[in-house]
């Protein structure tokens, strides 16, 4: 009996050790990211590297936030991400319901096809079309292309959620004379609210993180934050502190969202295998 307990304890210690090993690259990575952003240039260029800053400074953040274009880039990111997420919900939630109810598995395959297709392959034709329409200097191309990303995420997650709902309540509503639109709006939608939350978070993160559509379609005044960070990396003097600070500022909303909503995010990712990036 005693040996059994001992073995169990050793097993638990082994699991904890394995988890610590698996987590260490991530913990070190984000520690280092924060460390770079809080150190002055001398400490950042020191070798051997300075791990804990002697005099932590917020100067790098101040520099990033004071930059002329930072406000505009942030606003662009917010407009694009919110529009792409809201439009995807308006289009995708009813579609998920329709597909789930009609048991139309063919359309689910179509959504899967969107995942298989490289994002760049939409970009060549869309680039030419937007150029023809004279829209390249606006945010419209970005919002539209982000739909390529967000609509499949929303539809995919909502199909799963609506399929899991018991049909009894809607059927009762239909028997009582409700139209299918009313049954959807008044009965199914409120029940699927957790699913809508998951879909919203994942669509938001996917759109916020997106880089490839922006690098092709955005101009200097319409670039989103990931493109801005990339530009500051290539075009300006390489100075690690402000770069690390801007990287952290850009990804902070996503990291905070993940920490706060981890339960919903894990549920959504596990169900759909959808990726956020």
């Amino acid at each position, binding site marked *: 009996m005693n040996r059994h307990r001992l073995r169990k304890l050793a*097993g638990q210690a082994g*699991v904890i050790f*394995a*988890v610590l090993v*698996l*987590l260490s*690259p991530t*913990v070190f*990575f984000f520690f*280092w990211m924060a460390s*770079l952003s809080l150190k002055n240039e001398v400490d950042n260029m020191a*070798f051997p590297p300075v791990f804990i800053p002697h005099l932590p400074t917020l100067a790098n953040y101040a520099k990033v936030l004071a930059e002329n274009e930072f406000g505009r880039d942030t606003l662009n990111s917010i407009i694009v991400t919110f529009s792409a997420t809201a439009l995807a919900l308006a*289009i*995708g939630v*009813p*579609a998920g*319901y*329709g*597909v789930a*109810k*009609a048991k*139309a598995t063919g*359309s689910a395959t179509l959504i899967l096809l*969107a995942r*298989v*297709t*490289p994002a*760049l392959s*939409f*970009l*060549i*034709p*869309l*680039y*030419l*079309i937007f150029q023809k329409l004279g829209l390249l200097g606006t945010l419209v191309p970005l919002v539209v292309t982000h739909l*390529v990303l967000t*609509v499949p995420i929303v539809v995919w997650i909502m199909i799963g959620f609506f399929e899991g709902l018991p049909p009894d309540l809607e059927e009762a509503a239909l028997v009582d004379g409700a139209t*299918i639109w009313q049954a*959807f709006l008044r009965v199914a939608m409120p029940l699927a609210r957790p699913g809508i939350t998951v879909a919203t978070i994942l669509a938001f993160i996917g759109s916020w*993180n997106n*880089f490839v559509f922006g690098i*092709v379609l955005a101009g200097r005044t319409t670039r989103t934050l990931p493109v801005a960070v990339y530009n500051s*990396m290539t075009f300006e003097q390489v100075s690690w502190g402000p770069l*690390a600070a801007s*990287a*952290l500022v850009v*990804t902070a909303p*996503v*990291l905070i969202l*993940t920490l706060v909503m*981890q339960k919903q*995010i*894990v549920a959504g990712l*596990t*169900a759909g*295998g959808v*990726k*956020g*990036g």
Partner: protein
Amino acid sequence: MLPPARAGGGYARRYGLFSVPAAVVVLAVIVLPWAFTLAMSLADWSPTGGTSWVGLANYRHLFTDPEFGWAVLRTFYFTAIGVIAPLVLGLIAALCFNQRFPLRGAARTVFILPMMATPVAIALVWSMMFHPQLGVLNYLLTSIGLPPAAWTYSETTVIPTLAMIETWQWTPLVMLILLGGLAALPGDPYEAARIDGANAWNCFRHITLPLLWPHIVVAAVLRTIDALKSFDIIYVITQGGPGTASETMNIYLYQQAFAYYHLGFASAVTLVFFVVIVAVTLVMLGLRQRSLAL
């Protein structure tokens, strides 16, 4: 009077209306561009205007361009590491997170951060860590007595290094899929095995692995699709360099399309690239069928 089957069909059709807006969007931004790409791949397009039909010349050029052949090989090299390593590590991680231990929820949240964080931001910090003289990674290596590595600065190490980031980023997704699979496993076979005196390894080998296999295949297929398409990290850190040592199919495609504006040729690349991804996916799904039959 309508037969019941017809009535049901009518219902299904009415539910179809819910999908109309999504269908319009899919048509406009997914199907239409596809048709456009197909047409473009048969044309020569120049930024100064003017499109001329060139038939299959773009494809002929593509299949005789050694640079494209190398890009395909590099993509497979990158993908092989970027699928196998996350699957192995993700399986280990899922088995760990399936056990009870203190602060499990918090640990799992930290573990999934790499796949949620903005790829450009991540790539930027990694590239600072790879710096040959001032980077923290070489400091860590030398401080434990290992020689410094060239990371993304050498033609031989650049692909493994990028695949390492890919692994770090996407092991969490594999872990989550397999964790979902583990949670759904029945308890009975384990009870029976324990009564028969099976040890932990035998339980894993003969019960967990076979039952988890369908989930492993799903994770492998998704990972393969995503690794073949990997773009952000590679583009931000190396842009295909040094030289063309990390120029995968997707980077090659990007360069052709938006650095040189060979849009007709790039359209042909897109279609071939898509066919490659679909072919690999179908082969892997075929493996799944076989393994289920076994």
